[in-house]
């Protein structure tokens, strides 16, 4: 419809034939009307000349023209109805073609988005989201949890070092200290004993170091 290069179809030619016939019928009717009027005139003139037979003939002719005229009226009506029916059928055809085309395109679009593909896409999206979460975790939170022990150990180390730094100056009376440590040794477990001894040793080393300094 409305196509610039649209060719004339056989239907177009058929419609043209009908419309040309309609035109011809209309021209024919025009002629009949003129002839009928003329016959009336002829009849009047014949009567004036007292030619009754001539007048009668003219009126007969006129009657016949009028009959033809009414017959052609019916034909004209038929022609026009047929033409209009064809034109309407063509419109219907166009409407149907339009609907068909629309339906086809809708199907095509649906074909491009099948349910399995959509589901797969949604799964893929979920996977991608999970992966993204992993990445964010790895970049922010998870690293600390994995190395928590290490970090905690490091923290303890730093704290210990700080504690050592903040230790009060070592008292001069060393023997008192020895007794105290002996008391503690009795109350705590062997492990702690070892630890205590270790720290004691360290303390002593420290003391020595401090003393020499």
């Amino acid at each position: 419809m409305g196509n610039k290069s649209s060719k004339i179809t056989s239907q177009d030619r058929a419609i043209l034939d009908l419309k040309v016939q309609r035109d011809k019928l209309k021209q024919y009717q025009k002629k009949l009307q003129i002839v009928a009027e003329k016959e009336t005139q002829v009849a009047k003139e014949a009567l004036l000349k007292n030619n009754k037979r001539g007048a009668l003939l003219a009126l007969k002719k006129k009657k016949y023209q009028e009959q033809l005229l009414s017959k052609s009226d019916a034909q004209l009506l038929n022609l026009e109805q047929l033409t209009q029916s064809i034109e309407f059928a063509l419109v219907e055809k166009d409407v149907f073609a339009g609907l068909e085309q629309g339906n086809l395109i809708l199907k095509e679009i649906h074909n491009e988005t099948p349910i399995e593909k959509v589901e797969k896409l949604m799964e893929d999206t979920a996977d991608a989201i999970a992966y993204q979460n992993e990445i964010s975790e790895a970049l922010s939170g998870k690293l600390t949890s994995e190395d928590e022990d290490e970090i905690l150990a490091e923290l303890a180390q730093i704290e210990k070092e700080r504690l050592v730094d903040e230790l009060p100056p070592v008292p001069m009376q060393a023997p008192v200290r020895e007794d105290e440590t002996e008391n503690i040794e009795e109350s705590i477990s062997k492990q702690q004993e070892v630890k205590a001894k270790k720290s004691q040793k360290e303390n002593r080393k420290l003391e020595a170091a401090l003393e020499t300094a």
Partner: protein
Amino acid sequence: MENSFSFPSIHNFPPFYTLQPTQTTWQNQAALWSEIILAYYRHHKLYRLELFESLNSELFNFNNNQGIKRRLRLETLQAIIDTMVKRGTAEWESPPKKVSAIIYWRKPEEWANLINNWILETGMSNSIVTVYEIAHGESSEGFEFHGLDQTILMKALDILVKKGVAQIFQGTSTDDMGVKFFGING
């Protein structure tokens, strides 16, 4: 003629009927004559000018009550129409013979636009119209192109065909032409 055409006063001026020898005067004279011809043809919706016949018509004759008679000479009329042909307001029907001319008080392009607008306005796009119907059908009654000369009509339709707005074709059983309009604004 039904309602008569009122000629401008120059139409009653005797020298107006003689070809003026001075070039500039002649140009003015020819221009005035062509104006009168176009106005007269538009008024009476005429399209063809048969030179020999027209020379006897009121258009190219002047008769005043003082008994002064003037008539345009054939050569003068031919010269006037020659100037009209140059301006595109007339066309010799079968040149080189200068006996009959088509008068374009509307140019074929204008007729083409009028016809295409009529199709668009009456919703006849994509339907089949007979050539006869355009100029003589009931549907075109009251429109300016009703009664349009066949030659001009075909020219106007050819313009629409060239524009891609319409297509002319023949029926299966007759030579009568039909037109399919595509409903495009030319």
